[in-house]
């Protein structure tokens, strides 16, 4: 080392000891609550407690978006359906990759600082792939739920584990696939396993120690409020009818909730009832499956609930991210906007749970409308006939976006898509599939393939197609639609320059005009996009990132 360099290095070391660099600043709960005021970062799974996936960054505009250039690519060494959304904190990107790895990258260059690998138990039981959708952060600690139902705290500077808590027993069918939500000094997380007869719950853990602070079961025990919706089912009446069906009633949590600091309520979407399709085994509404629950963030106590699909037999999980909108229709009321898997768009008072609005955004024939309290009037289809929307829903877990500038709510939707349901008795066995029959993709052309995953689209328009649908959040009416040939599992991002970024199964990453839906820019990334885009800023430069296939791509305008 030359003398001059040695001198500079000493000076830098002295500086680091004297005053911590910005890169080492703590992510306080106050910063999380005010995430919108630091758009250079992406501090929670959905970008902030309102889960709008809206950023006030505006360097990339409708006029210059065509000049976006690829800046760097990070390739995951692990094959599979990569659903993660990264966090970006003061220049460092933290992301999960399958199975349960965490990687810290320089958000400017994509070079790694560290990697933490957690190997989930071999006897884990997880439905639908080894998915992990992301992390939460508080202080200098990252939090990850694992496929074998552990919650792990990781030092964000070193990538070393700090504590690990068993949330549930994986051998009983429990797992964690979503990003946790940090509220004040607690880490909130729920359990997956709705296809394995679990009894779902949401729980909060002390961020410093991992000690459980509260737990809310999404399936009430006998005597608790809501237990009356699990009606008696005499063993003789139906095969495998279980008088204690609630013990295996599902109600999984597999998407991250939202939080209202003023009301101190945290909102979570609850998954399907078990067994999924055979309603005869579990008569009643089956609360709180397919519901949104509003919980006191300090105690976990239920404040209110709204059930989107009572007595679901279609697997219409309410696993969508709750999007919080203030001053809805300029009437001073703060609401939750929700595009549900069951094909309806809802607006609900987030203080009381009162139903304001329900409008279908795709073809729906499982119900014909709502009563005055917002209960759907169900219209089950005859055996062998198609039910709209199909099993994967009018939308699913794909993050929607709300732009306060346009007043539009943006949904990744599946249109003209149906399933035919064949319920069948299903016996509960610990850790075994407990679904009660199964759906079949409907195609208007006999024998044609249903919706699939392949670079060759053999199912075509006969099986359904994808779209970005922009709804007026005040009325639920469609403002514009961007149709795709294949379906989409991509999340959506909007920005203050009225840009909308999204992907799809075809592998295109595209920018639309958020006001009109006009295509402004696209690039073919070569593999299906199964997660949501985010945006962040380093110095004066705005970046947009998206995962496609096994790679994370980052774009920006050339300097």
């Amino acid at each position, binding site marked *: 080392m030359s003398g001059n360099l040695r001198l500079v290095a000493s000076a830098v070391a002295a500086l680091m000891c004297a005053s911590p660099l910005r890169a080492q600043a703590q992510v306080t709960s106050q910063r999380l609550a005010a995430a919108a005021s630091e758009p250079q970062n992406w501090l929670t799974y959905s970008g902030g407690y309102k889960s709008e996936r809206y950023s006030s960054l505006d360097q990339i505009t409708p006029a210059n978006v065509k000049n976006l250039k690829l800046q760097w690519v990070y390739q995951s060494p692990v094959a599979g359906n990569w659903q993660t959304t990264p966090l970006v904190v003061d220049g460092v990107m933290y992301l999960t990759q399958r199975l349960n790895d965490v990687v810290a990258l320089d958000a400017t260059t994509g070079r790694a600082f560290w990697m933490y690998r957690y190997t989930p138990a071999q006897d884990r039981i997880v439905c639908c792939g080894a998915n992990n959708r992301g992390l939460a952060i508080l202080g200098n600690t990252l939090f990850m739920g694992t496929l074998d139902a552990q919650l792990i705290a990781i030092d964000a500077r070193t990538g070393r584990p700090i504590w690990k808590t068993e949330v549930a027993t994986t051998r009983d069918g429990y797992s964690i696939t979503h990003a946790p939500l940090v509220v004040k000094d607690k880490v909130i997380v729920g359990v997956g396993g709705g296809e394995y007869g679990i009894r779902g719950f949401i729980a909060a853990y002390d961020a410093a120690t991992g000690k459980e602070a509260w737990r809310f079961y999404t399936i009430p025990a006998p005597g608790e409020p809501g237990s009356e919706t699990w009606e008696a089912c005499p063993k003789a009446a139906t095969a495998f009818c279980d008088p204690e069906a609630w013990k295996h009633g599902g109600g999984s949590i597999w998407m991250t909730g939202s939080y209202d600091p003023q009301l101190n309520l945290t909102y979570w979407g609850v998954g399907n009832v078990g067994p999924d399709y055979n309603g005869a085994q579990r008569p009643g509404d089956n609360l709180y499956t397919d519901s949104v629950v509003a919980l006191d963030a300090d105690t976990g106590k239920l404040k209110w609930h709204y059930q989107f699909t009572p007595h679901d037999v279609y697997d219409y999980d309410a696993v969508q991210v709750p999007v919080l909108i203030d001053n809805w229709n300029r009437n001073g009321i703060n609401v939750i906007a929700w595009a549900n898997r069951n094909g309806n768009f809802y607006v609900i008072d987030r203080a009381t749970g009162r139903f304001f609005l329900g409008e279908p955004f795709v073809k729906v024939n499982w119900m014909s409308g709502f009563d005055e309290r917002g209960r759907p009037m169900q219209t089950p289809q005859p*055996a*062998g006939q198609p039910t709209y929307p199909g099993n994967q829903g009018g939308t699913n877990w794909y993050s929607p976006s709300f732009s306060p500038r346009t007043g539009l709510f943006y949904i990744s939707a599946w249109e003209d898509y149906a399933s*035919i349901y*064949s319920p*069948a*008795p*299903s016996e509960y066995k610990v850790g075994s599939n407990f679904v009660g*029959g*199964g759906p*079949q993709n*409907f*195609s208007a*052309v*006999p*024998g*044609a*393939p249903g919706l699939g995953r392949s*670079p*060759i*689209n*053999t*199912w*075509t*328009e*006969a099986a359904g197609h994808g779209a970005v649908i922009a709804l007026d959040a005040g009325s639920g009416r469609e403002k514009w639609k961007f*149709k*795709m*040939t*294949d379906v989409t599992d991509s999340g959506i991002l909007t920005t203050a320059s009225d840009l909308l970024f999204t992907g*799809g199964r*075809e592998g*295109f990453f595209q920018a639309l005009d958020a006001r009109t839906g006009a295509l402004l820019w*696209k690039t073919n990334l070569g593999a299906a996009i199964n997660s949501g885009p985010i945006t962040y800023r380093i110095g004066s430069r705005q970046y947009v990132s998206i995962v496609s296939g096994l790679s994370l791509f980052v774009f920006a305008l050339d300097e």
Partner: protein
Amino acid sequence: MRSVPAVIAGVLIWIGLATAAGDAQAPLHDNQYSDADIAHGAALYAARCVTCHGTQGDAIGGVNLRSGTFRNAVIDRDLERFIRAGSAAGMPAFALDTGDMAGIVAYLRNMNAFDAAAVKTGDAARGRALFTGKGACAGCHRVGAAGAITGPNLTDIGAVRSAGSLQRSLVDPVSQMMPINRPVRLVRQDGTVVSGRRLNEDTYSLQVIDEGGSLRSFLKSDLREYTVSTTSPMPSYRNTLSGDELADVLAYLLSLKGQL
């Protein structure tokens, strides 16, 4: 791995076409099975299952396949899973392709009602001769290196289509044309017209094989017209081949498993 011995093709059986013609609607759910699938499944059963389960399906104690209900399988998908996985009790795993699985499940569901005496047997060797000769199938379809490439390639058609679907294809081709295979007609912005068969499509582009056999890709923004035809250029063989000949062609098609 090839899943069905070649000999099976020679013992295929065929139910009269009168019923097949009225059965153009494909099964919509698990409880509807075509006669051709049941018959194909019966042949597979005779070749691969009968040694252990017996002709009456009751040779293993406690297992009666003719009952139509199964201890480890409620819906057809369970049955398929079980057959693919085998059992700890000693049943081997069977790696059946789509067409064979559809057949064996259809047969197991209908074993009790199935009358083997009422069916005709097709011959794959005779069917092959009809394919290239009287039927002129090779004028549009290719198997291996022989035949034209304008129609869908049939080299593995016996692995990807069920017997019932192939049977209906021969007598009512429109009902069985996969949407991806539909003929397309494109008019480009400069007025040139391209006709061909669709191979793939996304939001922005379209891939076809044109009438001259060239692979071509088009941006939708460069097209003035894009028409997808719902009628098939394939003729119905209902009146041009006899019932026995159709049975032979079906036997040949079912023998095409993608192995040369």
